[in-house]
């Protein structure tokens, strides 16, 4: 134990030492990565909301063809003398974006077409389109003249470590590209807030109102493709898919509000960029030597970023306030305690009903026996009822308080109303009614109870002949 603590402490101080080496180079790298991730998170949000995440995967592959095709086309123009070399170099970047956007729209269009023609589902059509266009792109990369400086590694893995370096304090080029892309995307989201919302939520209504959902879809594809191209240089076209989808998916777990969704996705992206880079420069040097790989000292920032995205998503899965595993567990436990407490109240009430003298259940183990509860649950239930002043205990056992009796009466009333209701509408022997009523009684509210009462022919008694208590205590005791 002691040794472990010591080892842990050593690792932590090693981490602090390595983290202290963080310098302005690291800041620029992380900032570039953050800008790329944030730019991606915006179209990503809409892909996730439209349940078209796979489209992002597809576009990141087909964009390769767009980039290469556009450059080859521009080069062909240069070679045949249509444009001079200067123009070619100046417009090379813009041409790449246009090419990728065109291919993005083309991929979406082809997918719809193949889906219709091949009578297959959308994802199958998408699979056909993006693999073939990607293959075509790879072929073109291979056959491209060597003077074009097309480096497949740059496209696949990203080169943030070598390109995101600030010269003379100026922001590095990829930071500027991604920053502009982020600004463009933010502007588009603000300008087309309503149009994006309605065409995502209700394509048919959107189209009838003159906001053509199809056109919006193609527009989104074009913007996604452009954003991806901007991010390729930094993180590569495979890991970029994580940046596109995961922050949005994380945000979707954390909020039910449309406006907040994009905000949270942006924060998650920025966070994963900085945390990812921090881990890239610290963790490998700590972990790998201990595993016997002395020479491994750092890892790719892009890879760590994608990993961090995944971890943040996992945290959201676990701890999201509404959909999280943890909160659902807490919710379930709370409900179980409430039901156990309800059952105890009902039991005490029924005891009072048959024998006014002995208003108690002796000891804890009696409670457990009567209600079939575990040790833990019976204790939690009793504690919760005592805290709400619904029961009190004295040496002779547990008793209902006035507050408790009031709640218990409503429960028993719910139970018997439900039995009576079932007896009226179901062809079941009376012995079958109790179990269902015991399940349902916890969920009825005054409104439903009064509706049930109105339904019944003899609202005063349940099928076993027992009185159904009134909603309010007759004397207001």
């Amino acid at each position: 134990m002691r040794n472990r603590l010591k080892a842990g402490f050593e690792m932590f101080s090693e981490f602090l030492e390595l983290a202290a080496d963080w310098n302005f180079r690291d800041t620029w790298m992380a900032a570039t990565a953050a800008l790329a991730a944030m730019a991606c998170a915006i179209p990503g949000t809409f892909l996730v909301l439209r349940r078209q995440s796979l489209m992002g995967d597809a576009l990141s592959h087909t964009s390769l063809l767009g980039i290469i095709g556009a450059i080859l086309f521009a080069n062909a123009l240069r070679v045949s003398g249509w444009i001079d070399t200067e123009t070619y170099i100046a417009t090379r970047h813009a041409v790449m974006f246009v090419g990728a956007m065109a291919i993005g729209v083309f991929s979406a269009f082809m997918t719809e077409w193949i889906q219709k023609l091949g009578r297959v589902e959308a994802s199958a059509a998408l699979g056909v389109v993006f693999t073939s266009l990607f293959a075509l792109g790879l072929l073109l990369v291979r056959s491209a003249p060597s003077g074009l400086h097309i480096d497949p590694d740059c496209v696949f893995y990203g080169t943030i470590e070598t390109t995101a370096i600030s010269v003379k304090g100026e922001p590095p080029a990829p930071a500027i590209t991604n920053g502009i892309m982020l600004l463009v995307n933010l502007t588009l989201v603000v300008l087309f807030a309503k149009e994006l919302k309605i065409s995502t939520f209700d394509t048919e209504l959107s189209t009838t109102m003159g906001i053509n959902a199809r056109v919006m879809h193609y527009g989104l594809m074009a913007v996604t493709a452009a954003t991806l191209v901007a991010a390729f240089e930094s993180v590569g076209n495979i890991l970029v898919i994580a940046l596109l989808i995961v922050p949005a998916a994380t945000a979707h777990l954390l909020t039910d509000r449309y406006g907040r969704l994009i905000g949270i996705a942006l924060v998650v992206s920025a966070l994963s960029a900085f945390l990812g880079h921090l881990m890239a420069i610290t963790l490998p040097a700590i972990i790998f030597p201990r595993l016997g790989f002395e020479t491994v000292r750092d890892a790719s920032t892009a890879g760590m970023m994608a990993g961090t995205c995944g971890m943040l998503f996992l945290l959201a899965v676990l701890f999201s306030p509404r959909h999280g595993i943890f909160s659902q567990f807490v919710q379930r436990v709370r409900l179980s305690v409430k039901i156990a407490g309800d059952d105890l109240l009902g039991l005490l009430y029924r005891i009072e009903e048959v024998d006014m003298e002995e208003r108690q259940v002796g000891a804890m183990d009696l409670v457990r026996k009567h209600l079939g509860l575990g040790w833990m649950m019976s204790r939690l239930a009793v504690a919760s009822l005592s805290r709400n002043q619904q029961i009190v205990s004295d040496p002779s056992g547990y008793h209902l308080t006035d507050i408790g009796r009031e709640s218990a009466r409503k429960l028993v009333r719910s139970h018997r109303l439900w039995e009576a209701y079932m007896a009226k509408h179901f062809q079941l022997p009376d012995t079958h009614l109790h179990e269902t009523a015991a399940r349902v009684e916890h969920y009825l509210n005054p409104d439903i109870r009064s509706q049930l009462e109105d339904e019944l022919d003899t609202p005063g008694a349940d099928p076993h002949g027992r009185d159904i208590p009134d909603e309010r205590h007759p004397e207001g005791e």
Partner: protein
Amino acid sequence: MSQAQLDQMRAEHPASSPLSIHDMTVAYQRKPVLWDIDYDAPAGKLVAIVGPNGAGKSTLIKAALDLVPRISGMVMMFGHPYSQQRKRIAYVPQRGSVDWDFPISARQVVEMGLYRKIGWFRPVTKKYRQQAVEALDRVGLVDYADRQISQLSGGQQQRVFLARALVQDADLYLMDEPFIGVDAATERAIVELLRELRSSGKTALVVHHDLQTVSEYFDEVLLLNMRIVAAGPVKEVFTEENLRATYGGKLALLEQVGHRMQLSEMGE
């Protein structure tokens, strides 16, 4: 639509009709699902569109709204092509056609009905938010305005859709199965609203599945089964004989010919 076609259509259909359909045929993969629909909706009436599953009820509405392509025929609304009349038409799609897990509130869904009025690029201002809340009040959901839509019951979701149609302040309402899967309170609320719309001179065409309530809720009925079997006032048209013709199976020859059209497309 060319001017000549428009003139021809205007000669045959009353300009006062909220919805005129001229000789419309709609096909899915070459197989006609609606044959030669020719119809004029009466102004200021509640019209039920009734027919068995697969009769083309939803398709009729969608084709009129250009949501699915027509292989022939024309549609006019208040004497003009639909593209010029969008603001006078409100469409209520089937509840199941959207993703109710979408992260927005009931009020935000209703606001969508105002987007056309607000216009491109402009934000939803307080005035419009207020209008949305008022519409929610009219359908009895004002307390649920800020609820996320997945937390509403089926009936409440349908009422949100109705509120969204109300804020559009249209003259013609096209509703696809608004009564399906709703509770009794919602059903009453919808009927109430339809009557209000009628008394302010609006027209509603409603795809309806419950034959029991047709004569109680509606003035007119359009009996549909791949073609119009009968259309007119409920009292005259909603007869046992017409219902038998509507529900007594599809016309065998229409089905056979349609099937052959589909097969020949596939080269068989």
